[in-house]
């Protein structure tokens, strides 16, 4: 036996068994079967290549379309045409990580998808281990789908800026950032054991198996129902919908990522100094032993007892301990949050406007004397928005001019000199937006205003895309508005690059540490996103 095979073998008995396992005459695939499978695979590979080639032809057609579209932009016909663009009835798939598949036949067959492809009514979507994807719905609502998840789109309609969405989540974890649902609209997520209905909020659903769904709310209110029972969850609260129709009372959420220090005889476990109960209903995704680095999510019951809902191996080895609750008292050195005392000191990061009664999330560590030291206390309304989309590789649905992002024919309100922001998306609301450091950096780099960069960002372009567009504008002399217009018409960034640089002139990504960029201006040295759109 090789030394490597014996790695981790601690006893002679184990080594002997390993030796016996290696002596087994293990079966092999019959030669005729293997041969048939190779033939089948070769056919599949050729089919895959043909499909890719067809995709390339579509791109060539897209170039032709692009030329036509750019001409229309220049002659001012674009606006009139796009007012009649059909309503977008698909969720776009972005930031695909790992393997993500969609099904068009209720889960019978699955096809791997790429960034920029769409999900429509009736489709299924699933992710593999260590995979994930961001779904963006036509109204701007965003869903982050975690690994080993499976969802089906029962209904997806977007008419007159009203979204009607019904999802069925059968496995895994999803987190939803829902823009306020307009009158007549609906945002509903079904699981096998319970349903969440929302009107504009941030929440998370975890379906570890067919017998349980866990609903946790970060912002706003979520109505969870199950077999006629209903419960209203506020920020920081969680409930479980169980297979027998039970809907457990709302409780505050806790999450622990840390080392498993003890497993007590009374089913009390300890992680990084924090104890909690493991019950027969706790979902254990692994066989844990003391010393493992694990992730526990659970509820703080009214009695103050912590009960674990799910335990899994932690993906990161960094200790992160959190719980949520209501601030009950505040002093200089100690706060009481839903019955739990936490020490605060000068290093504790405190959110703005915290007062008794605030719903907060506390990140803490356990000190040597057993007390909990708050590292950060924040209000739930301070939560971050959905993850930023990366540049997509596939054509997207056309957007309208003047900041019309949803293809509704109704232009959004414009800000001076920039496309109208998507107000529902929060970060693009002038009233509430926070300064985006990346936008500041890009504005400085290209000598344009911060508002101009954010104007593109709020049209759903990622900062990477904006960076690329401005760089290509500088290098090619093409106004940035025309470059974005090409993208709007469905042309991928790669094809735009080929169109602008037919002799394969390289587009140099600027060195962020080099302040001596060659910013020789093109025809439009300070491009205005609205320019050329009318």
């Amino acid at each position, binding site marked *: 036996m090789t030394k*490597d*095979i014996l790695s*981790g073998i601690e006893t002679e008995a184990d080594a002997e068994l390993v030796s016996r*396992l290696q002596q087994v005459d293990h079966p092999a695939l019959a030669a005729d079967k293997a041969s048939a499978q190779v033939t089948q695979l*070769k056919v599949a*590979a050729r089919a895959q290549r043909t499909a890719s080639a067809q995709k390339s032809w579509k791109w060539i057609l897209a170039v032709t379309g692009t030329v036509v579209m750019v001409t229309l932009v220049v002659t001012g016909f674009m606006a009139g045409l796009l007012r009649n663009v059909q309503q977008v009835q698909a969720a776009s798939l972005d930031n695909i990580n790992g393997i993500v598949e969609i099904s068009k036949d209720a889960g019978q067959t699955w096809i791997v998808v790429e960034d920029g492809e769409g999900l429509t009514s009736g489709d299924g979507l699933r992710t593999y281990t260590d995979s994930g994807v961001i779904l963006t719905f036509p109204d701007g609502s965003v869903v982050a789908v975690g690994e080993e998840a499976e969802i089906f789109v029962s209904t997806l309609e977007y008419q007159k800026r009203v979204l009607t969405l019904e999802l069925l989540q059968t496995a895994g974890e999803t987190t939803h950032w829902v823009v306020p649902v307009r009158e007549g609209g609906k945002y509903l997520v079904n699981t096998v054991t319970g349903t969440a209905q929302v009107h504009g909020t941030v929440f998370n659903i975890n379906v570890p198996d067919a017998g349980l769904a866990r609903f946790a709310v970060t912002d706003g209110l979520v109505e969870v129902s199950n077999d006629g029972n209903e419960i209203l969850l506020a920020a920081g609260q969680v409930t479980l919908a169980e297979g027998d129709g039970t809907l457990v009372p709302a409780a505050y959420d806790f999450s622990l990522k840390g080392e498993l220090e003890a497993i007590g005889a009374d089913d009390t476990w300890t992680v990084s100094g924090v104890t909690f109960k493991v019950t027969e209903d706790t979902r254990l995704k692994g066989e844990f032993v003391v010393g493992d*680095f694990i992730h526990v999510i659970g509820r703080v019951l009214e009695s103050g007892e912590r009960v674990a809902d799910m335990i899994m*191996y932690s993906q990161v080895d960094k200790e992160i301990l959190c719980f949520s609750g209501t601030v009950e008292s505040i002093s200089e050195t100690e706060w009481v949050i839903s019955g739990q005392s936490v020490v605060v000191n000068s290093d504790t990061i405190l959110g703005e406007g915290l007062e008794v009664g605030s719903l907060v999330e506390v990140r803490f560590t356990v000190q040597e004397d057993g007390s909990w030291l708050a590292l950060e206390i924040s209000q739930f309304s301070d939560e971050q928005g959905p993850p930023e989309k990366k540049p997509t590789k596939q054509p997207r649905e056309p957007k309208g001019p003047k900041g019309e992002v949803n293809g509704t024919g109704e232009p959004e309100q414009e800000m001076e000199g920039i496309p109208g922001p998507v107000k529902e998306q929060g970060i693009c609301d002038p009233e509430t937006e926070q300064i985006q450091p990346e936008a500041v950096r890009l504005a400085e780099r290209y000598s344009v205003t911060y508002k101009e960069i954010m104007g593109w960002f709020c049209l759903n372009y990622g900062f990477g895309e904006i960076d690329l567009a401005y760089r290509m504008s500088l290098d090619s002399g093409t106004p940035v508005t025309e470059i974005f217009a090409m993208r709007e018409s469905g042309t991928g960034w790669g094809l735009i690059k080929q169109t602008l640089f037919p002799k394969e002139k390289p587009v140099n990504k600027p060195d962020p540490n080099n302040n001596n960029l060659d910013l020789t201006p093109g025809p439009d040295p300070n491009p205005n996103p609205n320019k050329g759109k009318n």
Partner: protein
Amino acid sequence: MHTMNEMTETQAVRAASRGDPEAVAHLYELYHTGIFRFLYYRTGSIQSAEDLTSEVFLRMVRSLSGFQPGRGTFAAWLYQIARRVLYDWYRSNAAHPLVELAETHPDPAPKPDETAERRLEHAVLAQAMLSLPAEQQDVLILRFINGLSLGMTAEAIHRSIDAVKGLQSRGLQKLREVLTERGVL
């Protein structure tokens, strides 16, 4: 130009992701035995393992464009697909538990004159394996039947090396108990 025999795995993966049939066949040759054995010991059925092996490699062809070499090894990625195929298979077969082993391989309890050191048959081993928790099965098969390192096994099942060591230790203990109970050890 490389022939298939000269082609490294990295080159084969790159070519296969472009739809090169020979490169796909090369990857199949490299890995189909390991994948088949993994699926056999996890399902206990030769027939199912044959079918699922085909499915794993078809999914490989469809998914290769999404494989990111910087994020891990190709072998671990392929075993991740195999685990997902298994997961789907278990779900679709939940209402139809396997009977093949019991029907085709009667209880192999030894006769009195047989020695304790008699050869361990793969069907007996498969039956014993199926009585272990899934993660222990994964680790024992990948480590001691397919010969993967601790690190690659950890990557394939998304666990830390320490966790794999723990699963390995507990899995061997449990397997020894099961085989002893059945009179094989």
